[in-house]
């Protein structure tokens, strides 16, 4: 099914209103190109076998309870190769998924959560507005995991960042250094990383980001962050005499 006319989309029960969603429409050819990237991912055939429309995935889905979101619609759109709807889902729906994979309860063996992982990856790689928006405020986390090798650190526990987590967050923040020193495992005396990661290991991780294109992906959603990460990594690799 191909619908390029916005008025037709607005009348269809299948489509959300693109103007409400706040992203620009693009030519059909661009949507087809993006869908081909999704379909071309080596995991895609392992994630999609068709759909009974039974709705078991929706019943199990946490995001379906709180958002206008349905893993069944994701699987169906992908199976029908409905490039218009898949594009809309890449712009609106995919970031609502919790990635818990409750949907793999599918009796057909589908993995809607896995399809969403691929859709998200293509969204990031192509700098879609949804990816930029969803990752706003998230750049600090990307910086942390890519540059230090651990995702969250003790010093992230700041009361202004987690006011909804209760007064214990302030206790942790106020006593961070001494409480970390009171931990018996020797690798946990850190405050800016989850544990102490050695230098050689970090350099190996940087090389993985460089050689797999994972670092380049960042430039599509946050150019400033990409520049910082690249500088930090190149400098450390250079200091260690490693050529990228």
């Amino acid at each position, binding site marked *: 099914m191909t619908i390029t006319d916005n008025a037709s989309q607005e009348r269809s029960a299948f489509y959300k209103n693109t103007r409400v969603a706040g992203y620009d429409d693009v030519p059909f050819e661009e949507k087809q190109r993006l869908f081909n990237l999704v379909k071309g991912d*080596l*995991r895609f055939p*392992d994630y999609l076998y068709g759909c009974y429309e039974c709705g078991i995935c929706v019943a*199990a889905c*946490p995001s379906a*309870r*709180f958002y206008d979101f349905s893993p069944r619609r994701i699987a169906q759109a992908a199976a029908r190769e409905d490039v218009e709807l898949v594009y809309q889902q890449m712009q609106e729906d995919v970031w609502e998924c*919790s990635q*818990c*994979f*409750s949907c*793999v309860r599918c009796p057909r063996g589908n993995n809607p959560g896995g399809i969403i992982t691929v859709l*998200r*990856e293509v*969204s*990031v790689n192509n700098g879609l507005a949804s*990816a930029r928006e*969803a*990752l706003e405020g*998230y750049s600090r986390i*990307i910086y942390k*995991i*890519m540059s230090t*090798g651990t*995702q*969250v650190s003790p010093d992230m*526990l700041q009361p202004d960042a987690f006011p*909804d*987590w*209760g007064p*214990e*967050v302030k*206790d*942790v923040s106020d006593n961070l250094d*001494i*409480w*970390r020193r*009171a*931990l*018996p*495992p*020797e*690798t*946990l005396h850190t405050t800016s990383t*989850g*544990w102490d*990661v*050695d230098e*050689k*290991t*970090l350099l*190996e*991780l940087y090389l*993985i*980001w460089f*050689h*797999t*294109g*994972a670092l380049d992906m960042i430039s599509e*959603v946050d150019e400033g962050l990409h520049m910082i990460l690249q500088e930090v990594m190149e400098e450390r690799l250079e200091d260690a005499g490693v050529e990228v």
Partner: protein
Amino acid sequence: MPIPVEALMKKKEHFERGPDDRRSEDFHHELFELEEQGEWIVQRAPDPIVPVETKYGNIKKIPKAHLWHHKSCGQCGHIPGYSTSIFWCMRKLGYDYTDPRDQTSCTAWNYYASATSNAAAQAAVAIRNFSTAYESGYFPLIHCGTSYGHYKEVREELMRHPELRAQVREIMGKLGKQMVMPEEIVHYSEWFYALRHEIAANQVRDFSGIAATVHPACHYYKLVEGDAIYDADVYGGQRTAIVTGVAEALGTEVRNYSTWFDCCGFGFRHILVQRDFTRSFATLRKIERMKEEADPDVVLTHDTGCVTTLDKSQFAAMAHDRNVGVPVMSEAQFAALAMGAHPYKVCQLHWHSADYRPLLEKMGIDWEAAWAEFQQDLKRLEAGEKQYLTWEDVG
């Protein structure tokens, strides 16, 4: 409400293990075949081994000792009593391990949150860690449920796609690393389940008056479901036996609640930047259901994100007079407390948010005295008597 095993078995959706089940295929055949073809080295699970059954009846080998602890970002960073308790229990039972510095995160929390990575990078991160464990001679034990689930997915992807193996092999060549896949991908909670009777034999606190609800972690048993532990004696084999098997071995009453299959609401991205969803789901679908249907003294789970979400989400809901207020911890912390661990020096409960003190009282622990002991230790650190507390200091 007790666990309705009879009702579970009568449900038409209940599953039975059978040799003809398409899901029962054992991946090990392919794993070793790839080794024979020179695609990778399979690191054997070292003796002594505890054999356990997985969902469709295949045997999984759980090594007791000589383990390379693949730590968890969230556990080490925000709930350090979790990792500390795992180490403590292993030390108490006399099994050797190594706590490596040459380990990185699996990076899957970020991947599931932001998708700023790809299949090759994720597989390379996994293989780099596995290769490093192999070089050490120790066998990987994965602390995080997401790392465990993600690594099982990576194993599946690498087994299915030679082009992915070729790409990762090339990267490992640049790092001077070998392609290594462990014979089993083992989650720490599988170690606790396998050793539950040894843990119970070392129990010094009576937990028979304690009621618990269990939240099984999605990435443990939903991702590559066939490789999760199931036991006919726990839930009639209809739910994963992990955590519940340990709690029951310690004499705890595990109570049922209707939303056990629901996730915790973590959401990966949501817990960090969109917590209205996380808080709502965790409290409305999990904690309130547990309180209403089971009224537990404690919620036990076995993953970084689940402990964080279920614990931290309760504070805001309490402000709205919701039916919340129950402590949350890992079964590793719970088992450590059963074996006599200090609630602050080992289990580090002061990093948790929901009030755990009534539970400690029910366990017969004087938490005020324990806190005073911990404060004394902190004074020694502040006075410069010691730089760090050691294992000898915490008992």
